[in-house]
């Protein structure tokens, strides 16, 4: 077992385990923290794949901005284990079985097809900032600009929705 494989396995176990912890922990704050661990593991994978730019962006945007936002909301609402609504046991069981069955089916489907492609590990410059930047600002400059409009509208939308209004939607 090479060092690469060991690192891959470690990161994978870390990602899957944290994801499981995320969905099973009662306290939303814990969930958020576990999800951040998952994102870090995924960033580790990105570094392993020599996609440094994405690894950094993932940590900054996801683990940094987005998850902090989540944490913020959770804490704002003062949610904890006690307030966590309990779901119907039977429905939970059905959810887990169907989700697991879906996974099994897709895994078996992938085993059926013969992919013997290798992945370039820890080499190549396609994930470096220079190449990505050239590509982004040459070929994808229009989507890039349009995404700024998307951000603007998302911002306006968030403000409009979050504005305190006396709309009574209670029954």
């Amino acid at each position, binding site marked *: 077992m090479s060092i690469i494989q060991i690192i891959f396995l470690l990161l994978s176990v870390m990602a899957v385990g944290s994801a499981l912890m995320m969905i099973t922990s009662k306290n939303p704050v814990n969930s958020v923290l576990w999800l951040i661990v998952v994102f870090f593991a995924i960033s580790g994978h990105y570094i392993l794949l020599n996609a440094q730019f994405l690894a950094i962006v993932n940590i900054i945007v996801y683990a940094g901005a*987005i998850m902090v936002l989540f944490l913020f*909301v959770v804490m704002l609402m003062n949610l904890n284990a006690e307030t966590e609504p309990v779901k119907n046991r039977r429905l939970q069981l059905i959810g887990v079985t169907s*989700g697991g069955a879906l996974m099994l089916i897709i895994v078996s489907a992938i085993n059926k097809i013969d992919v013997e492609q290798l992945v370039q590990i820890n080499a190549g410059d396609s994930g470096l900032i220079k190449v990505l930047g050239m590509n982004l600002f040459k070929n994808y400059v229009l989507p890039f600009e349009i995404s700024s409009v998307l951000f603007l509208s998302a*911002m306006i939308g968030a403000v409009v929705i979050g504005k305190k209004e006396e709309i009574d939607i209670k029954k």
Partner: protein
Amino acid sequence: MDIKAYIILSLVLFTIGIIGVLVRRNAIIIFMCVELMLNAVNLLLVAFSKMHALSSAAKASATFASDAQIFVFFIMVVAAAEVSVGLAIIVMMYRNVHTVDVNFLNRLKN
């Protein structure tokens, strides 16, 4: 590394996301599961891009292998926008019904 390992890893993460959506009732957790699913797909896209970096077509074009990563970048952009709006909705919902239990939101029934 074999691409299969990455596919299966992504798949496992994605399925965990689905199961999370199915079994949890907390809107925030469900939302986080959705983020997890997006990240699983992101990982797969990067893995595929590195797989294509080995192909002959990649040698002809400098940007061939990095297209998928650009897509990951855009997915992050969209995810960030989505989170800002989605969290605003959740906050509003909490403000109105004082819970984040999605089962309270069964107004689609009527």
